């Protein structure tokens, strides 16, 4: 049994909150560049150039890429041979978020109650997702999630008879209905299967996979490619000004489900798709 102190988790979460908000993952940078090379619509090229300039400035000046520094989604994959000591795990994660958002000059965008809406002032609580896995390490991923795109996400419980074509239509319609609102070009995370809640979690996790890594299942890898192509025929374009680049990636995650159901969730992320991981 390996002992890990909560203090160490706090330190990692603090650092990841700051870094995730200042530096875009390499796969997203590359995808934006390659979309720019394929784009011949003038307004679209202009937007993609400004987006590229923006993440360069953010890195140089250590200023957040986007002012919506998000709700801090923290994924913890905890090895079953780890014992966490020195305090309460959830409190340790929140303390990391509190420090990261304060020391990193990040925006505090969390309200205590969804109806009464008073800001908590320190961006806590984090949205914490824990998973017990084999091993004696803890993998920590911080994914700050902006709500311009979160608000355009959708979930539907389909009948099995509705089949693949209905799933395709739903994905396409969700992106089309979102239009310019989620700051395209977007990344589309799709979760199919499981239960109502598991489908949503799969869609969120799909956003964590690099956009240049296809699904390991050839059937879904082909579907990802096809959906990306169809989405980029919608014409919405960067910022909705028209153009080819509506999405830079479609990632699909699936799991077994009930004989009576076919849940499907579509979680949309903006071009500032942020996540940073560290293993302790």
């Amino acid at each position, binding site marked *: 049994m390996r002992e890990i102190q909560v203090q160490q988790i706090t330190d990692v979460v603090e650092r990841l909150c700051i870094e995730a908000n200042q530096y875009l993952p390499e796969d997203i940078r590359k995808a934006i560049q390659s979309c720019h090379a394929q784009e011949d619509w003038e307004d679209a090229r202009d937007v993609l150039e*400004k987006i590229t300039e923006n993440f360069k400035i953010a890195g140089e000046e250590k*200023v957040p890429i986007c002012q*919506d520094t998000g709700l801090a989604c923290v994924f913890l994959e905890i090895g079953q041979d780890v014992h966490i000591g020195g305090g309460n795990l959830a409190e340790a994660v929140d303390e990391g978020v509190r420090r990261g958002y304060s020391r990193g000059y990040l925006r505090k965008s969390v309200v205590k109650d969804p109806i009464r809406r008073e800001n908590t002032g320190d961006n806590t609580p984090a949205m914490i997702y824990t998973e017990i896995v084999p091993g004696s390490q803890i993998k920590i991923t911080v994914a700050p999630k902006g709500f311009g795109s979160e608000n355009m996400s959708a979930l539907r419980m389909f009948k099995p008879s509705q089949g693949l074509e209905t799933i395709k239509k739903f994905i396409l319609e969700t992106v089309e209905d979102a239009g310019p609102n989620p700051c395209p070009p977007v990344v589309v995370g799709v979760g199919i299967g499981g239960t109502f809640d598991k489908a949503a979690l799969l869609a969120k996790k799909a956003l964590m996979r690099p956009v240049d890594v296809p699904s390991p299942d050839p059937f879904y890898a082909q579907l990802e490619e096809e959906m990306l192509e169809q989405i980029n025929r919608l014409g919405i374009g960067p910022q909705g000004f028209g153009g080819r680049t509506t999405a830079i990636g479609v990632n699909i995650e699936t799991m077994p489900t009930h004989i009576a159901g076919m849940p499907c969730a579509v979680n949309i992320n903006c071009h500032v798709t942020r996540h940073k991981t560290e293993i302790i």
Partner: protein
Amino acid sequence: MEKYIQTPLTKEDAKALHAGDRVYLTGTIYTARDAAHKRMCQAMERGQKLPFDLEDAVIYYVGPTPERPGKVIGSAGPTTGGRMDAYAPVMMAAGNRAMIGKGARSPQVTEAIKEHTCVYFGAIGGAGALLSRCIKKCELIAYEDLGAEAVRKLYVEDMPLVVIIDCEGNNLYESGRKAYLKTVQSNEK
């Protein structure tokens, strides 16, 4: 078309702008998003004074990140305009000439834009670091308790914007997409 414009923005200025124009804005503008709009509309209902004069004013839908020491402001890109749809017609009726945001607006907002000769500008969503460079002065003037949502008076220089909805109701989100798809179709023929 590229145009250089200044605040305050008059009706005549708004009439000269067309959906799709690339605009560089210089002058004083004010920040307000969901919570500040709610308070300002409540204040108007009660006949109370507003934090700034709405006449010919430009409102930027933004909640910036805190500034680092020695900096004017943090990251400061636009938020989704549609969330202000419930308040925007009241603001325009009271003199608010232009809004800066991103994303679609309701038909009621487009009608109010036409009725009061206003304009809806888009700034690039997610480009908060780039846009913060145009902001030369920032002063918190009201609703400090709202934090990022407080009302700030900004002085901007050559802020890059695009006209999304003009005073005739033309909408770049519709026309830009349509024009692009038309070129794709003609290329495929």
